[in-house]
Structure formats: C-alpha cells, structure tokens
C-alpha cells in the first residue's frame, strides 16, 4: 500500500510539473501583458513594472525561478492584478470555497445517492423514469439559469435568505444548491447504474433467499458495491467543487476561488493564473489518490489485487 501511495505521489509531481509547463507557456503566448491598460502607460512606467515583477528577465530564467521560489521560499509570487501575494489570495478564497464545496457535495450526496438507489430498485417504474428525467434536467440546466431562478423565486420571498452575499450560515444554502445540483444528478445516474449491476448478481439473490429483509439487502449488501462508481466520481468532483465556480460565485457574490481562474486570464495575471492552476492540479492529484484508497477499502477485489502487488 505504501509503495502504491508513494508511486502515485511521484506521478502526481510529474503531472504538476507538466501542468506548470503548459500553463506557463500558454500564459506567455497570450497577447498583451499585465500592464496593457486602456489608458496607456508610458514606456518607462511599463519597464518599471516589468522589473518589479521580474518579467523583464529572460524567459528561461522566469520559467525556472517560479518553481524554485515555491520550493525554497514557499512563495507563489505577487498577483499583478490584485497587488497582493497569490498565496494569500488562495488561502483566503479557498476557505470559502471549501465550505461551499462541502455543502454542495453534501447536498449532492443526500439527493443523488438515494434517488439513484430508489430508481434502481424500482427499475422501469414511473418513479425511475421520473427521477431520471429530473436528473437529466439537473445535468443539462446550467448554473447561470438555476442560480437566478433561485434568487428570484426563493431568496426574494423567503425571510432570512439573502439574494446574494456571504457571511451568515444561511447564505450558503442557495449557492450550494446551485453548485450541487448537477453533481447530484450525475451521482443519481451513476448510483443507479452501479446498483442495477449489483442487484442482478447471484449473492443478492442468495441474500434474498436467506430471508434477509429487502431493505437490509439493499443497504448492507447491494449499496456497498453499487456505490463504487460514485465514489470514483466523487474524488475529482470534490476537487472541482471545492476549487470554486466562477458562475456561482459571481451570481451569489461568494468570495471563492473560482473567479480567479477567469479573472487571472482576463487581466493577464500570470502569477495568479499559475497559482490557482497548480493548486487545482494539486487538489485533483490528492483527491484521486484518496478516491483510489477509499475504493480499495470498500471493494475487496481491489484490496486483494493491491495486496498481491505488495
């Protein structure tokens, strides 16, 4: 197991470096620079600014100095558009995104998994078709439609719920629903598929034959296997949820991390862009690893192969 984790971590490092290289050169290939403004700066001012951020150095030097600074100083440079360290921006906005992402994931699991189980058990009934139709809508309707609808119909009418803003616990509700709904829909479909496969297997028939109550067969025996596809999906989905969403954040005025992915590109803020891209890559690597470990714990077959490779 340890060797498995170590090898995955090493692969992860390689992935991050590849990600860095691609992002760095793509950022450099963008037309314009951070100091391109509508009101033109003098050549002198632009030169001073480039020097300030080290952007006057040769490209290779810039390419090498950034990872060097991460390793030696733990520094992610200073954002050219926000004028503050990228590390501060990420640490402040990530906290918000984690809260929102966890809530969204909670909502997604609480809605998605039960619906998937029910529709698998009641296969080909109106319950199945109905819930799956709703799930399809959940996948298809984008957040920029759901968000404003929730604002107009729920927040504007419900006491205690604000249209937008962040700070009180109830402010989490609407953005979390908006963010979690499509994940819930995916989970429902994945759970249904996984459950259908497990329910048709022999050991379920045996369990039923032994006289175990149907509810126990489903929760104890079937769900454990049926949920596996969802677990594999939740890992990266979790990384995506907690790294924020530009749309949900701008609609609900949430100070999360997602907006920086978009705004960094618009303002040619390559340090912020590199920072959030690498951080997101790091999350994906870690979450995938966690999902793999969790699958190993849940699925004896994986555990056995894992053991044999030791």
């Amino acid at each position, binding site marked *: 197991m340890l060797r498995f984790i170590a090898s995955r971590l090493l692969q992860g490092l390689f992935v991050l470096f590849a990600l860095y290289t691609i992002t760095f050169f793509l950022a450099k290939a*963008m*037309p*314009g620079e951070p100091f*391109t*403004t*509508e*009101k*033109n*700066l*003098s*050549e*002198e*001012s*632009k*030169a*001073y*600014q480039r*020097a*300030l951020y080290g952007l006057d150095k040769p490209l290779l030097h810039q390419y090498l100095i950034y990872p060097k600074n991460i390793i030696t100083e733990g520094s992610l440079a*200073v954002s050219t*558009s*926000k*004028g*503050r360290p990228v590390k*501060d*921006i990420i640490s*402040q*906005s990530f906290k918000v995104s984690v809260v929102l992402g966890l809530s969204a994931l909670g*909502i997604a699991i*609480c*809605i998605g998994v039960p619906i998937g189980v029910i529709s698998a058990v009641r296969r080909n009934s109106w319950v199945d078709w109905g819930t799956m139709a709703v799930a399809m809508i959940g996948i298809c309707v984008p957040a920029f439609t759901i968000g*404003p609808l929730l*604002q*107009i*119909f*729920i*927040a*504007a*009418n*419900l*006491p205690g719920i*604000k*249209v*937008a*803003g*962040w*700070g009180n616990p109830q402010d989490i*509700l609407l953005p979390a629903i908006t963010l979690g709904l499509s994940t819930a829909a995916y989970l429902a479909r994945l759970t249904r598929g996984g459950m259908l496969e497990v329910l048709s297997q022999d050991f379920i028939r045996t369990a039923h034959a032994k006289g175990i109550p149907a509810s126990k067969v489903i929760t104890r025996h079937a769900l454990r296997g049926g949920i596996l596809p969802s677990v594999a999906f939740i890992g990266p989905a979790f990384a995506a949820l907690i790294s924020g969403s530009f749309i949900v954040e*701008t*609609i*609900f*005025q949430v*100070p999360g991390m997602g*907006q920086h992915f978009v705004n960094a590109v*618009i*303002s*040619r803020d390559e340090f912020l862009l590199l920072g959030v891209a690498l951080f997101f890559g790091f999350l994906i690597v870690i979450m995938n690893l966690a999902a793999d470990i969790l699958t190993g714990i849940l699925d004896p077959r994986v555990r056995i192969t894992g053991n044999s490779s030791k």
Partner: protein
Amino acid sequence: MRITNILCLLAAALLTGACKEGETAVDRATREGILIMGNTSEPKGLDPHIVSGVLESNIISALFEGLVVAHPSKDGVALPGMAEKWYPTDPQRPDEWVFELRKDATWSDGTPLTAEDFLFSFRRILSPSLASDYSFMLYYIRDAEPYHKSQRSFLTCRNDESFPVKWETLKKVDFGPNEKGETDFNKKGLDHLNAEQIRELEYDPSLFQWPESVSQAVRQILLEKNLEFAESGKDLWELIDFGATAPDPHTLRVKLNSPIAFLPEITKHYTWFPVPKHSILEHGRIGDRFTEWTKPENIVSNGAFILTSWKFNDHIQVERNPRYWDKENVGINGIRYLPISNLYTEDRMYFDGQMHITYTLAPELIEYARERYPNQVRNELYLGTYFIRTNVTREPFTDPRVRMAFSKAIDQQSMITNVLKGGQKPAGGLVPPFGDYRPAKTIGFDPEGARQLLAEAGYPGGKGIPEIEFLTTDKETSKANAEALQAMWKDNLGVSIRIRQMEWTSYITTMFEKDYGLAAGGWIGDYMDPLTFLDMWMKDGGNNRTGWHNEEFEALLKKAGNTGDPQARYRVLEEAEALFLSETPILPLYWYTRNYLIHPDVKGWDPLILDNHPYKFLRLERNPNLSEQNPNP
C-alpha cells in the same frame, strides 16, 4: 430529515407567495448611519500611489483628503480640504500656486499633517521603483516628469553650458526604453543602463544604436556623464529643481511647467493626496511597493473616515475618523463597499434591500426599475465620450472625407433609443458639455451629406471601397452596437464592414498596434477640463492609436497652455476641438451617462459629472411615509 424540512419550508413560502418582512440590511444600515454601496470589484489596493481605477478612488476618497475637496452639488467648485486657502502668486499667469494648509490637520493616529507630508507624497509617487500607474498626473509640476522617467542624460547635461548641441536635436536617441529597439541596450534605454553596462558600451559601441545625426563627440560626452552619475550612487532627486517646496510646515508652494488655472481641480485626484510619511517609512522605504502600511491594522489616513474592516472579495468598511478636522459636519457614521462584479446580482441585491446605492443598473432592467421605483432610478451625464477610432494610416480612412462620411452616416439618436437604451446623450463633439466650455456642434446625422462626401472621395455608393474591419470587444453589448453601426453604414453609405470581436486585452493590444480599420473606444476624463480629452491626440500620445496628428492642432494646445485667463483659454481649446473634429480621426457616438439605483434614505447625493461624491456631506434619513414601501419585486 433536515433537507426535507427545508424543502417543505421553501415550497410553503413559494406557494403562499410570502413577502419578506422585518428589517432589511438597508433598514438597519440607515438606522446605524452606514451607507452601503456597490463597488464592482475587489480593489487592487488602498495605496493612493499604486491604484489607478474608479472603484479604488471611491474608497480612497473616504479615507484620504487632498488639498481641496469637491463640492457636493456643484461641478468644478473646490472647498477647503487640507488647505484652508489657495491662490496663484500671479493671477495673470497661474504657473505658481500657494496652498496654505490648516494648522489643525492631523493624521488619524494623531501625528500632525504638514507640508512635508505632501512633499514626501509627491516624491514617493514619482519614484521609479514604486512603478505607479498614474504618476503622470503630477507631470504638471516642474521637473516631475524627468525625475519619474529617470531622464539621466537630460538632467546631467541640461545645465552644462559647454554641451555642444541643442538638446532638441537629440530627440531620436533611445534615452528611454524602446520596445522596438534593435539591441538590448536600446530596448532598455541609455538612461536606464547601470555603470557596468555603460562601461561595456564604451568598450563595444555596437551594443547601442545611435541615430546617425549624433556626432561621435556628443556620444562620448553623454556616455561619460551617464557613467559618472551611475558610479556616484546618487539619486536623480539631487539633480532636479523640483517645483514643490515647503517654505514652512503649513505652506505648500507648487511651481508648474506652464500656467494652469484649474490646478485645484487636478489636486482633487487621489494621486495628489498626502500619504503619511511617518507610517510609510515605518513599514519600508520610500520607493517600496509591497509594504504593509495599507493593511487595516496599520493604515493611517487623514480623511473623514478610517478603515475598520477589509475582508478580501467580501466587503470594505470605513467609519468616522474621530481626529478629522471637520468631524462635526460629517453626516454619516460609515460606508460599506461591496465588490459585486455581476451587475444583475447587484441589482437583485438592491431590490432585496441589501444596499443603498448600486454601482450600475443593467440596461435591460432600466424600464422595469423605472416602472416600479420611479424615484430610485438615476440617469446622469458622466464625463466620458464613446467614439470610434479610425485608422488614418489605412485605406480608405486616409481620406478625411471618408471619415466624415462614416461619421455623418451614424444616426446617434436611433442608436441610443433602440440599441443602447441607457439614456445616453448624442455626442456633438469630443468633449462632453460642462461649465463655460462651449464647443461648436459639428457632428450630426446627415445621410445625404455622407453619401455625397463618399462619392467625392471616389467611392460612389460605396463602390470600390477596400475591405473595412471594425474592431470591438467580446461583450454581448459590443456586438449589438457593432451590428447596429454595420447596418447604418450599409443603409446610408452602401458600405459593408466586417466585425471583429476580441477579448479585452487583445483588443487593446490590437488597437495599439493599429491593426484595424475602425475600432470602438471611449475615454473617461480624469479631471474637469477639456484638456483631459484633447491632449491625447498629440503625435506621440500613447492613447492616440489612430495615427492622426496635426501641427496646427498641437500649436493650439500649446497656445492654450500658455494662456493664463481661463475664458480665453477655453476659446483656444474650442478652436482646437473644432479643428480636430473637422479632420474626424474619430467618430463621436455618445456622451456617457451613468444609470444606477439609489435608495430614498440617502440625502445629499446630487448629480456630479465626475461622479466623485464627497461622502462627508451625505445624510441617511428614513422618510416616515416611505417606511411602508417595501422595495421587493
């Protein structure tokens, strides 16, 4: 289960169509005397010398105060701020100004504020290592520009009587950075080479390209002077004869390059605000950009308010400054700024009772808001012009008749009523109307005249005209505007143009490189004077981007610069604008208006063309008959 409970609650609320009751955020804020306003986005910082945007200006003007203060309802009127009195030493030629500072002025930590703070501030914003975006706002002061631009060659040679040639003959030398320079040293600029690089250059002259007209002897002198100064380790500050001085702690004397009767207007800009010398030096050196002096726990300011809370991307809050000189007359207890970038979210938050003033009102919502909240929608003229640049270096816009034809073929009013819908004003010229400045109205819709001009230029009915590309941004509204113009030119001139949308920075870059035929654009004035719109069209102006220039126009601007009498100066500037418009390097479309929502509780918020509202004059009061009215949709 809790989820089901919540869902039931939601359903019940929806079914009953329950309306929100109880105190909204605005109700509470009014009661507490806190103004809540939308401010589009997170500020880049609160250091007046580093930021360059309107949203930062909105916060900085609450925290800091300059020499004079804007009038709450009259444009172009200055009230006493840090200065009690100000006057030019010679009213006929206002090129030297005296500001008598108030003796009771202090910083929010109790330290007295003196003329020395202003001198320190001016020097700081002009420090090259600070890399301030907006330092050019101080270029009016004698020797500010050569210091900020580090013009070492000029400063070391200008007082040398033995220098063999006139300085003007050296214009083509790359003293400053030249991006298109052939060698690395040309790219850096002679003035910016360090001692080692200059020695290298003396050894190998091919490292720097000189214009051929510059003699070997002059080159040698320039190199020697540069090397001598670079080796001395001195700061260029020691070489200049800076225009601002402090004869005593409460007097600031500012000597300008040329007479400027509207200098008090310029000092309203935050680049002229004082910053606390003692606090800045405590956290770093004068030219250090990334210091912590503006952090909420450190910041010391001199305005009507002090910073109390700054939550990144969430809000900024300022509250009364107990040490402010005019604290008795400050009408509100504080201001909370919300960085809301999505304009629809902002409007919904306003309707939900979460803020007093929005930054903007989405054009689609203007009708809706006017019907429901007629007294809360504002539409005000703003000091800005929207226009279309023509590339006069590219066919067919090399011919001024074609440019004029394109301008006359635009039906501005129809564009405003049918496409923009924001109550903009058709632009009769470049400079928006204000004060005593009265430009001749030269631009207007005249399709017949347009066709005639185009025919005269050799393109009757648009035949034979080269392909034209219209550059604009990638916003949805930009596309609608571009298509409306496209249709107008097609109908009125018979010319088909191609629309090219680009993402913002690419659009600016492309425009700068003059890779366009027509380009959408605009300009917001920095201060209340026509010059803020006119001086950008000089030959080497970084914001010109059209390739147009005209010696007569520049001569007129120069003449205006040397005219002391404000009225006479306006007449010269009017002449310059008329000349500019007759050449039509740009096609003026409309004068900006600002649409926004304002809650009836806010008193004393009057229309101002620069939109800089001095917050201390505001009041928050609830009208008794309005408390029943709930601003929910």
